[in-house]
């Protein structure tokens, strides 16, 4: 393949593929929200849209050698010490120095807990509203609803 493009992919895309993935996912969601005619499909698009952002935030906090952000230093190692060099790990813990790179960044996880909850609530409320629309208009297709409204003028 042309070296320039290869270099571009090698240098730009491969190490940062997570950003590309979340942008593509997000654009799918956004496209669905804007253009889909059925209200429920719009909501599905919204869910994809929000999930993409959650993916983006979580991908920020990842560290190559980082395990889950829970400090486990109890004597009985009931789960395997993260990383092969357990000797260095336990030695560190003796005088209580926590190696920052061994734990993932906790902040994005906290933020995304909130974003998930917000996503659920918005989705729940939107479903309730769409049920309300369905009850009064009898349909969930946006163009049919607008036709029902237009001849009626101001109801």
């Amino acid at each position, binding site marked *: 393949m042309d070296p320039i493009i290869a270099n571009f992919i090698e240098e*730009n895309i491969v*190490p*940062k*593929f*997570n*950003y*590309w993935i979340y*942008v*593509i996912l*997000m*654009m799918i969601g*956004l*496209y669905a929200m*804007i*253009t889909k005619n059925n209200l429920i499909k719009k909501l599905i698009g919204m869910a994809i849209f929000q999930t993409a952002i959650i993916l983006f935030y979580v*991908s*920020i*906090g*990842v*560290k*190559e*050698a*980082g395990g*889950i*952000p*829970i*400090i*486990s*230093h109890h004597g009985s190692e009931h789960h395997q010490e993260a990383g092969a060099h357990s000797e260095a790990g336990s030695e560190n813990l003796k005088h209580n120095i*926590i190696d*920052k*790179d061994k*734990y993932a*960044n*906790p*902040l*994005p*996880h*906290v933020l995304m*807990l*909130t974003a998930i*909850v*917000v996503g*659920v*609530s*918005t989705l*729940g*409320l939107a*479903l*309730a*509203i769409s*049920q*309300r629309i369905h*009850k009064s208009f009898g349909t969930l297709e946006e163009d049919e609803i607008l036709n029902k409204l237009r001849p009626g003028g101001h109801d």
Partner: protein
Amino acid sequence: MKLFGLIAVFIVGVLLLSATQDFPSWGNPRSAASDGEVSSFYIEKTEAVTKVPNMVTAVLADFRGYDTMFETVVIFIAGIGIIAVLRNFEGSDSSIDYDNDDNGAGLLARFTCSLILPFIQIFALYVVAHGHHSPGGGFQGGVMLGASYILLALAFGLSKAKRIFSERRTMIFAAVGIFIYVGWGVLCLLLGGEFLNYSVLDSILPGDAMMARSYSMLVVEIGVAFTVTAIMFSMYSNLSTRGRLSKGL
């Protein structure tokens, strides 16, 4: 409309991607976010300051406790919002006329559910209680507890589930959950510290200031669990019956 959608999406996409050129590569520990002062403080100091090994729960319930309080309020709003939008108490179908033949999903389902339901609920409570040491916490436990009630409604029919967890009770549960959370924060206020400053509570809680923070986090997580359980079940019961609470799915 479709063309407009495509153009808009394309522009937004290109704009977003254009910013990635000066982003740190994925997983690079030296990135500004991971290597930053704030997150390194959380990693290195949470164990020392709050005696809670699970940093995420510590940040969630203590450092950014104010955020989580509003998060619970968001769930609470979703719950009462759905009721406000869907239910009409004046209209014809306002009386909750349970279909009497709603006996849930048949004998086999009812039997297996009656077996596994207790374990689900115990595990849910475990997740809430052990949010400090293992992944988990108020939200996750709350959702599991809520799911157990939904399972009950599916298996034994909404009418029976509603008899246990009536609409009035869900509202009280949800409100009490937030009361616990905000009340605990106000307790810190009354004792002189800032809102949600748990270390001030060491006078009334056993152990030193750090332990007080750990206990307070547990209390706060319980509050969250209350609200989440109630709202999950209320969402299910309202959405599945389009606000008539007549017959489960």
